[in-house]
């Protein structure tokens, strides 16, 4: 199969190994079970040992059904192979100038289209098995719950190339003549093997994909430390303490068996988080930020500019001595592939120090680059509160915010709203004004008695809730009015849905 340009508007097929990778694993497993049984049977015949247990193979062999059964098996095999082949034949996709379209199904045809200017991110997932054969799954997320267009599977390098081209089309530029793909056709088996091994061992992020100064990578010690100092560990320690007390008091060990599932669960949580975060990297590319992670099964996603609706930087209490932070985002699409694997792909920095946080924030919020806003941001993260550029809750809010009333506040910069919360679990929420969907100002009887009010900034659904309670009434009204005006102003000048077109317009 020659490597042609995939984004040329014609219909293309997926990688030939697709059926094997998608449903084939179960098939191989069944075949394996049959073969193992068959081997026992053959050994028995050769050695001549009597087998008194019931064995379907023996039974078939002794009842002259062998030919018939064999025929049925072969027919079934042919049917399955034919079905897989047909479904592969019928599963085609094309990428035109403004949309991506997928047709699939043998009897029940489905046809799915996504508009390119509504792309929220393009994810390339390489499950371990697919990586071995050099295939990758390309997932184009369009705004909406599970409104994703999946191309599973493509050739590994073809997937990278296709993503580049889709992003180019989506960015609003006319597709430039692309350089021919380097792909030297692998002639011999050893060369092919060589290439696989190289792909497998290659660093998570190709060195020429992004300027190195923009790359944030995971620090191994920090990752282990963050896992050790997580809330799960606290729960685990409490559980162990509780368990030892019970053992000491009763001298019984039986109940430990009941704990085994919990231990397995916690263990797999640690291993999952560890392997997923280990080769984590985030970098800036011309078409948005690129987040990659995974040790055996890798995944890397490109989020075009302006697809991040809210950002939360938070710090659990245990991380504070080390100055570690976690960053989560809200985005308009959710990917099913990630959700199942435990850690949702809304975590954009699992753990990092202040320098990492600064870099990541610069990447995800390009509007914040001037030093004044960055200084404000750092104040927002670390300040104990008081008169520091944020409008904080008044003293009377101490009834509702026992410890955090000094820190509970907001600030408005040129193009985003900063909400700061929490004195023990510190967090800072940044919402780009151009992404605000609507705003609400609330006051219940209790807040009214205290002359306080609460403001919510509504963004698309996600882990980040941009709500700030217990603000001074007048300050809350100001925030409400200013953010509403800012949202309108920023949205009218925002052109990030065609991000390169805006750059060109500005350049000319």
């Amino acid at each position, binding site marked *: 199969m020659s490597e042609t340009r995939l984004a040329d508007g014609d219909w293309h097929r997926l990688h030939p190994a697709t059926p094997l990778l998608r449903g084939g694993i179960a098939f191989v497993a069944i075949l394996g079970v049959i073969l193992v049984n068959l081997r026992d049977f053959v050994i028995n015949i050769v050695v001549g040992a009597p087998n008194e247990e019931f064995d379907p193979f023996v039974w078939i062999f002794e009842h002259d059904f062998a030919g018939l059964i064999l025929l049925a098996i072969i027919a079934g095999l042919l049917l399955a192979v034919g079905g897989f082949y047909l479904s592969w034949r019928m599963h085609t996709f094309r990428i035109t100038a403004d949309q991506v379209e997928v047709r699939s199904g043998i009897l029940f045809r489905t046809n799915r289209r996504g508009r390119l200017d509504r792309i929220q991110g393009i994810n390339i997932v390489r499950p371990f098995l697919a990586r071995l054969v050099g295939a990758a799954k390309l997932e184009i997320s369009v705004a909406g719950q599970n409104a994703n267009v999946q191309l599973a599977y493509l050739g590994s390098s073809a997937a990278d190339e296709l993503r580049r081209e889709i992003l180019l089309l989506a960015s609003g530029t006319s597709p430039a003549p692309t350089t021919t793909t380097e792909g030297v056709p692998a002639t011999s088996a050893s060369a092919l093997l060589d290439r696989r091994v190289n792909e497998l061992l290659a660093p998570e992020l190709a060195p020429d994909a992004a300027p190195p100064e923009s790359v944030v990578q995971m620090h191994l010690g920090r990752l282990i430390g963050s896992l050790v100092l997580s809330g799960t560990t606290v729960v685990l320690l409490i559980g162990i303490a509780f368990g030892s007390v019970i053992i000491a008091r009763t001298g019984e060990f039986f109940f430990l068996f009941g704990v085994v599932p919990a231990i397995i669960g916690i263990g797999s949580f640690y291993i999952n988080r560890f392997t997923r975060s280990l080769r984590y990297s985030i970098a800036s590319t011309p078409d948005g930020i690129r987040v990659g992670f995974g040790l055996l099964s890798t995944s890397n996603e490109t989020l075009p500019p302006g697809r991040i609706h809210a950002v939360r930087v938070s710090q659990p209490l245990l991380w504070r001595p080390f100055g570690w932070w976690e960053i989560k985002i809200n985005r308009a699409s959710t990917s099913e592939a990630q959700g199942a694997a435990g850690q949702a792909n809304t975590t954009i920095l699992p753990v990092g120090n202040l320098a990492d946080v600064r870099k990541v924030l610069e990447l995800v919020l390009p509007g914040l680059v001037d030093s004044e806003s960055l200084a404000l941001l750092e104040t927002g993260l670390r300040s104990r509160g008081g008169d520091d550029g944020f409008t904080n809750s008044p003293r009377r809010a101490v009834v509702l915010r026992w410890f955090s009333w000094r820190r509970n506040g907001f600030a408005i910069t040129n193009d985003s709203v900063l909400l700061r919360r929490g004195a023990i679990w510190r967090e800072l929420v940044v919402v780009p004004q151009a992404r605000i969907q609507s705003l609400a100002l609330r006051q219940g009887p209790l807040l009214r008695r205290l002359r306080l009010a609460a403001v919510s900034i509504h963004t698309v659904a996600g882990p980040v809730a941009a709500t700030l309670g217990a603000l001074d009434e007048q300050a809350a*009204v100001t925030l409400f009015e200013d953010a509403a005006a800012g949202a309108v102003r920023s949205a009218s000048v925002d052109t990030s849905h065609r991000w390169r077109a805006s750059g060109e317009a500005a350049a000319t």
Partner: protein
Amino acid sequence: MTRLELADSDWRRVSRKYIVVDLVGTLIAGVVTVAATSIPAWVTQLVWLWAIPGSLAIIFIITLCLTPRRVRSIGYQLRSDDLLFRRGLMFQRFVSVPYGRMQLVDINRGPLARAVGLSELRFVTAAASTGVTIPGLPEAEAEGLRDRLVELAESRRAGL
């Protein structure tokens, strides 16, 4: 204890007829709820179980008394760039939705509202929590408002 008020606001209120709709709706809900919760007390003949429907009945009566004022508190205004909506007496809520953010505008008519010729306008943005519903608009006004809003949203269309 003054209520929250926004500067230079000129609220358009909903139809007075909606008070009747809301009253009847609350009344039906109240009767059904009180009847359903009094079944255990009626079956078991335990006196203290009457406390549940009793307290519910009191809550519903208070709600009914406040309904006219609550309906009068519902208001909206079309500002130059966004729709402003308010409702609530005890629990006040103001919502601002920029026109460009509206994904669709729904018109709903319940059986009670239809009897007195009222409609309900619902706005949907990409955020689930927006939750803006203007009840009690005369049908013609609701349709006019919908067309106006769709037109405004179209002229200020932005990405997500």
